[in-house]
Structure formats: structure tokens, C-alpha cells
């Protein structure tokens, strides 16, 4: 397909929905409306089949057996790594490390950079970070005497760039760890600009891409970040698999924090040496089928055409925004100019858990609570929010059902 043809490809949402068997489920007697994609996305048949085929036809341990199945497993596993490399445009598969998910990736980075940190050094994160991009840094700060400083957000839920500039004035700033897309607000942060600002001050950059990859294809070379991390399960792939991308020199320098098989070159009681990248960070038998599944997920999503997906998703967000005023007392939290299709909200007089429970009664799945972002909840002075997060397989009709359900709930409590 030519680039133009790919760009013009539109999404046939009904056909796409047939690729996701779970979307045909009923919940509480109603057709499932799945709007909790930000927590975890559903899996297409392509992923389920790839994993089953792997177990039926290829399974063995990787990089070990002197036999045909071992070769097949290794080829499938390393093939998936190459798929990820292409997906994020990394220069080399040595820079693509399998982890259990974004959380493990960030922990690996934080731990690996600990040796660089001195007491008083500053690690900059933002108020809108997921706990997974706060707590690992706090743990490392505790060990090293470094400090974790938050970059404030604006009332619209955008990163306050002036606040970042003043934090970067400090000559103790060492690491900038920010999310590409906010899981609560849907805000798309201007990461390229943030990375450039940090780089100009010699500050290392870590980008949490967990919420970005379902919507955008990150180009790690164009972004010029030092690290990028994401999870498979939010990208329509399996749970238990994620990716850590890193600049090669930094990965070489970093110490692994898990030891065991696979990650070693040579073990003796006198001296043990590490394997080369990426295996140095992959102790133990890896999640092989999950890696294969993630590769299949990326192939599937890319095959649909990112432009078509983005157009479809933005139409969902636009329709949702239009309908907000039809629910008395509903307020959207996070009104950034650039957003992925995520709608965090509150309704006057209702607790998010009330909203979640009564939506579930109507077959609609959303997430409620603090979304692992307690500092952000504090900033917006809410105990939690209700969050609808859409994927390309959601329909405009589902958006309308969602709002009709909210109207019903609002009436129920108003009685």
C-alpha cells in the first residue's frame, strides 16, 4: 500500500469489532460496552492465535536447546523483538529489553541509574505521573539521598512548562521522568520539547509510554529520549510483557538488578560476568508466548493504519465532549488541547464508585478511583474520578449509550 493509501484508509469499526471476541460478551444481561481501555485493552484474535500457535507448534526454551523447537521458539521470540524495534524505530534490537511491563521497566531504569546519583541530586517527575513513575524514583532517592521533585500541572491538566524551566535551572537536576500521555487526564505531553529542554541541561530523560502506544507510534530516535517504556496489555497484547528501550551506552553502563540464567556470560565463584545487551536485563526464562503475542498485536494495530485509528478515536472523544452537557452536574477533569480519547469526570453529589457500580449494571465498564495517581487527585481536590477510556473498536453508538446511562444514574440519585 502506498503511504497515501494508508493515510486515507478508514476504519470499518464493525469489521474490527469482530476481531475482538470478548466484545460480543453480555454483562448483567446487556451487551458489553468496554470503556476501560486505559486500564487494559482487549485482545484481537490475531494475538490469541499467535500465542496458541506458538504453544502448539513452536514452544521450547529460547537460546538454549540444541534442537528444532528451540530454534523455532527463539526465532519467534527474537522476531517479536524485531517487530518492537521497528515499531518504536530503535536503532538496534540490543536496545529493546523485555520486561513484565512498564512498571518493571521503570524500576530497572531507576535502579540502573542509582550509581549516578549523589545526595542532593534532583529527579524531576510531574504531578500527573502514574505511581509507577513516582515510587521507583522515591525508592532510589531514599537509597542515594537524591530528591524527587514534582513539575506542576495547570488546572486544564497540562504540564506547566514554566515550572519545568525553573526546575531545570537547578544544576542538581539529573533525571526527567515524565509520562507521554496521562492515564487520568488523557493529556498528550509535548515530550519532544520536554526532552530537548532536558537534554540542553544534560538531564537524562525517561518517558513512560504506557498510555501513549495504544494511540501513537513512538519514534524513539526522533524523540531523542534516553529511555522509553511501555506495556503490552494496553497495546492490545498480552499481560506480563512490556518493553524497555534505552540508549545503548546507558544500558551498557547500568547494572542489572535481577540475576540468574540468561543474563550471564560466565559464572564462577571467583567472577561472574554479564551477558550482552539486551539479555543482561532478562534474567530467567522470559515470557516467550507473551512476547510473540505482543509482536502479533503490533502487527495487527499497524495493519489497521494509525491515521485511521486516530481519526476514529478523535471522533469518539469529540462526541463524548459534546454530550457532557446533557448530564446535569457533570464536569470533565482534564481539558488539555491535545488529548487521547480519555474522559475523566465527576458528577455533583455522586461518588465515582456509585457511578461505576451503576454503569456496570447497564453493561458499561469504566474505571473509578484514584487511577494510581494520588498526587494528581490531590491537585484536583477529588477523592477519585470516574474514567471512560475509549479504543478504536468503540463506536459512536456506545458513546451515546454511555451518556444515556449516566443520565439515568443522575436521575436515580436526584429522586
Amino acid at each position, binding site marked *: 500500500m502506498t503511504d497515501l493509501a494508508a493515510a486515507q484508509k478508514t476504519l470499518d469499526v464493525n469489521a474490527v469489532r469482530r476481531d475482538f471476541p470478548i466484545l460480543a460478551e453480555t454483562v448483567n444481561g446487556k451487551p458489553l460496552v468496554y470503556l476501560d481501555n486505559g486500564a487494559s485493552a482487549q485482545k484481537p484474535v490475531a494475538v490469541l492465535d499467535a500465542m496458541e500457535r506458538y504453544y502448539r507448534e513452536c514452544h521450547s526454551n529460547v537460546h538454549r536447546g540444541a534442537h528444532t523447537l528451540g530454534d523455532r521458539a527463539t526465532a519467534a521470540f527474537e522476531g517479536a523483538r524485531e517487530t518492537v524495534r521497528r515499531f518504536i524505530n530503535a536503532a538496534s534490537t540490543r536496545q529493546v529489553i523485555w520486561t513484565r511491563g512498564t512498571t518493571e521497566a521503570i524500576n530497572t531504569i531507576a535502579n540502573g541509574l542509582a550509581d549516578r546519583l549523589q545526595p542532593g541530586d534532583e529527579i524531576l517527575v510531574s504531578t500527573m505521573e502514574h505511581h509507577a513513575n513516582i515510587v521507583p524514583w522515591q525508592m532510589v532517592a531514599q537509597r542515594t539521598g537524591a530528591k524527587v521533585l514534582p513539575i506542576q500541572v495547570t488546572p486544564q491538566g497540562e504540564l506547566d512548562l514554566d515550572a519545568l524551566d525553573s526546575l531545570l535551572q537547578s544544576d542538581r537536576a539529573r533525571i526527567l521522568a515524565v509520562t507521554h500521555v496521562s492515564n487520568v487526564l488523557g493529556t498528550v505531553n509535548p515530550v519532544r520539547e520536554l526532552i530537548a529542554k532536558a537534554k540542553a541541561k544534560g538531564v537524562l530523560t525517561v518517558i513512560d509510554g504506557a498510555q501513549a502506544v495504544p494511540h501513537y507510534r513512538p519514534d524513539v530516535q526522533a524523540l531523542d529520549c534516553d529511555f522509553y517504556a511501555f506495556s503490552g496489555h494496553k497495546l492490545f497484547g498480552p499481560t506480563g510483557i512490556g518493553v524497555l528501550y534505552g540508549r545503548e551506552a546507558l544500558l551498557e553502563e547500568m547494572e542489572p538488578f535481577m540475576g540468574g540464567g540468561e543474563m550471564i556470560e560466565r559464572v564462577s565463584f571467583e567472577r561472574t560476568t554479564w551477558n550482552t545487551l539486551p539479555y543482561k536485563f532478562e534474567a530467567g526464562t522470559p515470557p516467550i508466548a507473551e512476547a510473540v503475542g505482543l509482536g502479533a498485536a503490533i502487527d495487527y494495530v499497524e495493519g489497521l493504519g494509525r491515521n485511521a485509528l486516530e481519526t476514529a478515536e478523535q471522533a469518539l472523544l469529540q462526541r463524548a465532549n459534546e454530550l457532557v452537557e446533557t448530564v446535569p452536574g457533570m464536569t470533565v477533569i482534564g481539558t488539555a488541547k491535545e488529548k487521547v480519547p480519555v474522559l475523566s469526570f465527576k458528577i455533583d453529589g455522586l461518588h465515582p464508585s*456509585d457511578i461505576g*457500580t451503576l454503569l456496570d449494571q447497564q453493561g458499561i465498564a469504566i474505571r*473509578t478511583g484514584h487511577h494510581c495517581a494520588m498526587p494528581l487527585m490531590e491537585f484536583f481536590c477529588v477523592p*477519585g474520578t470516574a474514567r471512560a477510556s475509549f479504543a478504536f473498536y468503540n463506536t459512536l453508538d456506545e458513546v451515546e449509550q454511555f451518556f444515556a446511562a449516566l443520565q439515568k444514574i443522575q436521575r436515580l*440519585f436526584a429522586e
Partner: protein
Amino acid sequence: MTAAAQQFLDNPLGQGVTLDDVNEAFEFLDDWEERYAYIIDLGKQLPAFPDDEKVEENYVHGCQSQVWLIHYLDPDSGRLFLMIDSDAMIVRGLAAIILIALNGKLPRDLLSVDVDELFERLDLFRHISPTRGNGLRAMVGKIRDIASKEEAGA
């Protein structure tokens, strides 16, 4: 008797209203809207909870909403009285059902209530699963702890 103690004793939940009443009401409610309207209504019957008791030691952990629980052991009758509050309305309703089952009993009698059977019955109320973070189990756990301590002290 203090005003606070009187508030505990006056709580109709578990005294005038029984689980059989709730069961009976549920039988006549056809769809989820009616059932939840009833639960929300039960929540509105929770006696006013004193604001100065909304402190850490009365906080029930393990709920998505904020839940507070206080108790009073009536020295005359030896019965245990409870008050619960939450900022979520459905949780208030579920708390009311718990109070209907457990409030105003001797600690010994409270401890003999088959909680799993109670949860099973709540499940019969359709979809009020006690496992979904609404804190039913956490509330009941805390109430049983209180009853055990009072029973041991008695």
C-alpha cells in the same frame, strides 16, 4: 446517658428493620434501577454520623470510598451498637444492610452470625458482589474484630 449513646440506641437499623424485610422488599423489585433506588434509600436511613469521629482510627481500610465505623457497648444490656458512614451512596446503602444484620446484638450473638451466608444472601439481591471493592468485607471484618474484643473483655 450521653446524647451520643442515645443516638446509637435509637438507630432503627437492626432493631425495627430486619433482613427479612429487606429480602421481602427485594422480591418485589424487578430491575436494577428499582433495586438500587431501594439501596440508596436504605442508605439515607443511616443515622447522622458525628463529623468529629471521622478520624483515622475509625477509618475502614479496603474500600474505594471513604468509610467510617464507630461502636458503643451499652452497659445496661451488653449489646453492641454500630454507626457507619461513607461518602458513596451505594456504600451507605450496603452499610445499612450490614447494620440491619448485625446492629444491636450481644457480641457473642453477632459473632455467631454466618457472614458467608449473609454475603450469599446479598448476592441474591443480584449483583451486589461483596468482592468488588465496595468494602462490604472490610466493614464486616472490622465489626467482627470489635465484637471479638468486646466479647473477650466481657
